[in-house]
């Protein structure tokens, strides 16, 4: 026929082009460029997220801390009830994601850890019904958290309270913090704020340990049966490190001191001699063995793989006084230090900290969470007992006596550290509750030159903690 050839060509050409279009559609539907659906500007992601009925968060006693509410317009809105809990709970925002406990337990709260039953598959994958998440119960106690947040109100710093011996986190405070209820509105200001409210000082910060390193040196001394009653001459002398002059945290009544007394007054000179006697190799092995040089591991909150962190403190041979006064490149995290305190308060093991107590699926019952991370041995039981005794007896007479409370046998150390032009005050310690249970605390206040202030605030927190947890 006259036109047949041209028309056949046209049909063939059209079919080829349609096949190309089909191929392109297949590419976008099946493969697509990586991450196209997870792009931040994909409103479908936000839409799906906004429809999820996120689970509630409770404290260890069942007090509701955060919940998802339905607004007048039918939209879902996250609401946080206790400002004191903010730094621990973090935030949930459709625009800015999650932080803190909201991020750590995001999968549970979104319902992604629920088993994929036929009913759930039908509801979510076939009918595309919005997901409903599980509730989460934290180990936090709102009373202790309130006390710690109140203590640090108006300051920059952090406080961590652990339960001994299991490592349950009872309080986790970082100040300054933010209000997650108004996060979307204030995001720009929060991001630009000089005092970095999003930076969780309890979990992510590293500070110069300053005098707190004496507790660690003392720990190794007790472990190696070093005579802590030996007398050191001129124990209150000032150590010069670069432009820094570091003496006792509190001036002792005399200059001849035992190691125990030097510890009570925070005098660094005897510890320099102790460190030289112990040797850099042994000290560094001890420090690295308990991951002091790294950020702590706590599921979800910080990277679960241990990161290379600050350099180990001791040079070999020990020549730098800076190592021994905690002013070298070595830095410590408050949660790590709380773990040390917990080991001393307990049986010598550093517990793996955890914050998740239980989960509850929609319409179900609570399932208790059992932490599976093992504790890390720091001291023998006997060495822990001896160190505990030193810290408890030295507290009322030394630099940390502001932490002392009449009805409690609090043990601990208050110390000063220097960061550039500024100082910061530390307290690490513990308070027994029963024979086999105690509280451990680490508290740091930035821009403070008063260790006694840190001790006093820590004492207040421990007092509330013991009061709350003590058996009736």
């Amino acid at each position, binding site marked *: 026929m006259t*036109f047949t050839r*041209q028309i056949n060509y046209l049909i063939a050409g059209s079919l080829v082009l*349609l096949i190309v279009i089909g191929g392109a559609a297949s590419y976008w539907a099946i493969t697509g460029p990586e991450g196209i*659906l997870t792009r931040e500007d994909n409103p479908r992601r936000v839409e799906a997220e906004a429809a999820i009925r996120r689970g509630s968060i409770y404290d260890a006693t069942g007090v509701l801390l955060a919940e998802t509410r339905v607004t007048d317009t039918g939209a879902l809105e996250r609401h946080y009830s206790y400002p004191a809990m903010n730094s621990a709970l973090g935030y949930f925002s459709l625009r800015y994601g999650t932080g803190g406990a909201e991020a750590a337990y995001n999968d549970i709260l979104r319902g992604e850890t629920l088993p994929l039953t036929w009913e759930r598959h039908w509801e979510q994958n076939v009918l595309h019904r919005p997901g409903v998440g599980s509730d989460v119960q934290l180990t936090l106690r709102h009373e202790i958290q309130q006390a710690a947040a109140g203590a640090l109100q108006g300051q920059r710093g952090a406080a961590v309270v652990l339960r001994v011996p299991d490592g349950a986190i009872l309080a986790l405070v970082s100040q300054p913090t933010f209000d997650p209820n108004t996060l979307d509105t204030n995001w720009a200001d929060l991001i630009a704020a000089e005092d970095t409210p999003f930076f969780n000082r309890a979990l992510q910060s590293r500070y110069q340990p300053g005098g707190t390193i004496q507790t660690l040196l003392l720990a190794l001394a007790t472990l190696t049966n070093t005579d802590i009653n030996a007398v050191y001459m001129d124990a209150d002398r000032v150590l010069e490190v670069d432009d820094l002059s570091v003496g006792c945290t509190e001036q002792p009544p005399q200059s001849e001191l035992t190691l125990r007394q030097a510890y009570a007054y925070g005098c660094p000179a005897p510890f320099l001699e102790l460190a030289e006697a112990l040797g850099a190799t042994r000290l560094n092995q001890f420090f690295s063995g308990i991951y002091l040089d790294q950020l702590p591991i706590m599921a979800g909150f910080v990277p679960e793989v241990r990161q290379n962190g600050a350099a180990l403190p001791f040079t070999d041979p020990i020549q730098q006084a800076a190592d021994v006064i905690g002013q070298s490149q070595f830095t410590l995290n408050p949660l790590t230090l709380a773990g040390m305190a917990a080991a001393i308060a307990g049986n010598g093991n550093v517990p793996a900290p955890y914050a998740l107590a239980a989960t509850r699926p929609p319409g179900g019952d609570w399932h208790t969470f059992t932490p599976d991370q093992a504790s890390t041995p720091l001291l023998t039981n006997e060495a822990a007992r001896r160190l505990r005794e030193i810290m408890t007896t030295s507290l009322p007479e030394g630099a940390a006596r502001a932490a002392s409370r009449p009805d409690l046998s609090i043990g601990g150390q208050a110390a000063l550290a220097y960061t550039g032009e500024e100082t910061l005050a530390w307290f690490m310690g513990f308070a027994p509750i029963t024979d086999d249970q105690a509280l451990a605390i680490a508290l740091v206040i930035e821009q403070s030159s008063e260790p006694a202030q840190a001790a006093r605030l820590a004492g207040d927190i421990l007092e509330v903690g013991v009061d709350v947890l003590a058996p009736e």
Partner: protein
Amino acid sequence: MSHSVNATAASQANLSVPNSAVQRERILLILAGAFLIVNYTALSLQRPDVSFWLHFGVWLTCVVTGHLLLNRYLPQRDPILFALVMLLSGWGLLLIERLTPLFADRQALWLIIATTALIAAAAFPHMLRWLRRYRYLLLILGLGLLIATIILGRNPSGFGPELWLGFGQIFFQPSEALKLILVAFLASYLGEEFPVMNTFSQPGRLRLWLPVRIFGPILLMWGLCVVLLVWQRDLGTAALFFLVFSLLLYVASGRILIFISGMALMLIAGYVAYLLFDVVQSRVDIWLNPWPEASNRAFQIVQSLMAFSAGGIFGEGIGQGVPTYVPVVHSDFVIAALAEEWGLLGVLTVIAAVALLIVRGTRSGLIHSERPFHVLLASGLSLMLGVQSLLIMAGTLKLLPLTGVTLPFLSYGGSSLVVSFIMVGLLIRLSGDKG
């Protein structure tokens, strides 16, 4: 008179012993209806407070009326074409219902008008003859409409290109009518000049250029259309016209070189337009790399691609996706909405439907191999619908820059629907009018 006698006789024969074409069309229409019932039911479950069944009733009425009247007047027609456009237009109505419910009533009304126009175009016995005979009158009418649009054009949205003529609350896009007029004119003119063209296409007489007698008026007409369209910034329609013009010229002349030259001219014109017009520059830039502008100029195409990805193979299900994030999704980007909710399977179904439309449409002309006008008209109409579908689908998939044309039968828009239905009505006429 003889026609109506024949039609009546055929109709009586059809009533007693239904022919296989009618039966096949009926089965296909039942399948299309079943598909729509399932989807309307699913949508009703999603939105129990809204009743959609009135619109389904409109579609069903159009189907039954069209089927019965076509049985009466054209019992030997192609059994696929009517079923195909009713499936697509029903699907389109469902999509409008789901995406922009406020427009659904109007679209249903347009469906009634379009079906009526289709039946008229298919059943009216003198339609083809008139199109062939009064081509210059049609051309003047088309150009008059375009000039009127330039002077009186409005945009129903209140902003954007003013490509519509309004009569009260009813708007009509003259460039849609021009598609039909252009094809009819070209088919008529080329059909009349076919003997001359055929001579020039004989082996041994191959020449690069057609005589001015053939090429001149066509080029003049095309140039005028394109200038007017470019003036109106309706570049998608201009590109569509040029493509169809080149293809039709190839069908008529048999010279592939003409088509290749046409494509080369189009690329040059495209490059010049890129240099001259911001809108073209913007569309090409976005096409080349939309991602840096994903939240600004390229928002529409990026959201479209996300819709394809979100739909996956099986789709989210009707009412379950969020395709409304694609701006004007009910119009140019309706295929993106379809992709998100019916998935790749839905898109492939539409592609297959377009393929069938092209194949059956062009083949409906081939049964009139001794009538060049009929062959060229069938090819032109099929190409116009096919190329338009290809352009917009390729645009939404980032294969081509966006052209801003609608997807026939599926997109919202009365002018497009009516003109597309008339085109199919003519194809049905061609397929069923063996005389």
